[in-house]
């Protein structure tokens, strides 16, 4: 219910944003969706994927290639971007989920870097380093306010889906697997099947985010598949707090705002980001979202105490 109010507020905010504000907000929703998709794996199953860029990039390239080479209308490419990323995740997940923890993380990273190399070297198909440009969606889809609503709608849809997932038996099963895999299998949960499905859902949503980002930027480059792109969703999640449902989306927004502010004033964004992450991990491991929840609950307790005292 509270989520719906949030989406309504964001929708009402739309017309008040400047052109630049709309772009920034759209980007925040996209990165937010991407980070929340990552956190489905990280929080619910305990799997640390360091290759989410593979799916982000697959989605983006699917959209870009269909538009630029196939002449498809932009909206029609979104379901396909979703599907292709899901298939990519099915393949990569099938091979990596068998491995435990650190090997899983390394293998996802390796697959993403492999795709990056392909996109980078295969000039004839992907345009290599030059990327695929001039992707402005036609007509109203290319207008910032309309696009803001498109992105907000899909973000809301994705978030509600993840919310429902967390409260479904499938969500319980994922957390049961994270808590204790053998125990979960002993009550008849197929660990591999469940983890693979979670991986595919996460990959598909990441791919959707990638396609939206490509259209927002009007271009897709190999760096959509580069490992720094995988790091972005992890950074946003750490910043916002992986233990809070909306944490990754909050982290994504703060991440983008900080980048704008810092880059306007200094050249040292990576340094600043590193220092900030160090502070977060050392002093606020629950992230900004966790911090906010803690303060809210403390205030609530304070009020109760005040009420009982009077």
């Amino acid at each position, binding site marked *: 219910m509270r989520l719906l109010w949030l989406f309504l507020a964001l929708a009402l905010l739309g017309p008040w944003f400047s052109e630049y504000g709309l772009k920034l907000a759209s980007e925040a929703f996209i990165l937010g969706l991407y980070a929340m998709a990552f956190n489905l794996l990280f929080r619910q199953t305990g799997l640390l994927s360091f290759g989410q860029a593979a799916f982000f990039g697959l989605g983006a390239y699917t959209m870009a290639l269909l538009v630029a080479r196939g002449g498809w209308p932009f909206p029609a490419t979104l379901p396909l971007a979703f599907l292709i990323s899901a298939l990519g995740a099915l393949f990569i997940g099938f091979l990596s989920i068998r491995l435990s923890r650190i090997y899983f993380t390394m293998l996802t990273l390796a697959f993403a870097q492999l795709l990056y190399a392909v996109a980078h070297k295969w000039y004839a198909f992907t345009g290599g380093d030059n990327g695929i440009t001039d992707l402005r969606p036609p007509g109203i889809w290319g207008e910032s306010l309309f696009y803001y609503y498109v992105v907000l709608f899909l973000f809301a849809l994705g978030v509600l889906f993840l919310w429902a997932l967390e409260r479904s038996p499938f969500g*319980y099963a994922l*957390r049961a697997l994270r808590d204790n895999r*053998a*125990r979960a*299998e*002993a009550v008849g949960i*197929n660990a591999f099947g469940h983890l693979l499905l979670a991986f595919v859902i996460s990959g598909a949503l990441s791919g959707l985010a990638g396609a939206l980002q490509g259209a927002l930027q009007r271009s897709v480059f190999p760096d959509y598949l580069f490992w720094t792109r995988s790091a972005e969703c992890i950074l946003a999640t750490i910043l916002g707090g992986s233990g809070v449902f909306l944490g990754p989306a909050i982290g994504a927004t703060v991440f983008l705002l900080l980048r704008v502010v810092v880059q306007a004033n200094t050249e040292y964004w990576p340094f600043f980001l590193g220092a900030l992450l160090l502070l977060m991990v050392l002093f606020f491991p629950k992230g900004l979202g966790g911090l906010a929840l803690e303060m809210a609950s403390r205030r609530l307790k304070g009020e109760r105490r005040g009420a009982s005292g009077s």
Partner: protein
Amino acid sequence: MSLRIEGLRAGYGEIPVLHDVNLEVREGEVVALLGRNGAGKTTLIKAVMGMVRVFSGSVAYRGRELIHLPLFRRAQLGLGYVPDDRRIFPELTVRENLLVAQRPGRWNLEQIYRLLPRLKEIEHRKGGLLSGGEQQMLTIARTLMTNPQLLLLDEPTEGLAPLVVEEIARLVLELKGEGLPILLAEQNLKFTGQVADRAYVLETGEVRLEGEMEDLLHREEVAALLAL
């Protein structure tokens, strides 16, 4: 016949713990595995679930060979396993712990809460915050939610207060009354005497004695084998 184990050699790594074990659990029967720590009771139950290495022999459930099936498939076929370390899912609430295991059948949330009202009272508490007795109740209840056709209980009374042991005996008898076959590993002879029909006494991975529970209760060798 619910469960038939023949010529089972099983253990860990290269080392067998069980040697040529033969055992049967008939439909509707409660069978106890008695023996000291290290006698092989837990290994035997784990072998039925496929959690240890089986070197040779057969584990058949309702006539179907299980040896090559993974753990979750055995659970889906109707084997309900209650481990001895009674580790529930600490991050899930009591209710979620139960729902995660649910499969269609006689047992559902409502039935479980009727049988164990205490769980209803604490349904929104995280599993990790329960007392030992509550955790044991929840572990058994969670296994019932899978609607098992054969229940494997590994030392359900270990480390529990006498009152809680009584409660578990009541629960086991109730399940027995419904005709659910149970294989029970235990060291508590009093508890076992209350609930079991037959028993096997294990020592160093071999079956030393078997028979009706009532007879075994009065035999001195049993007391000797259990070192009571």
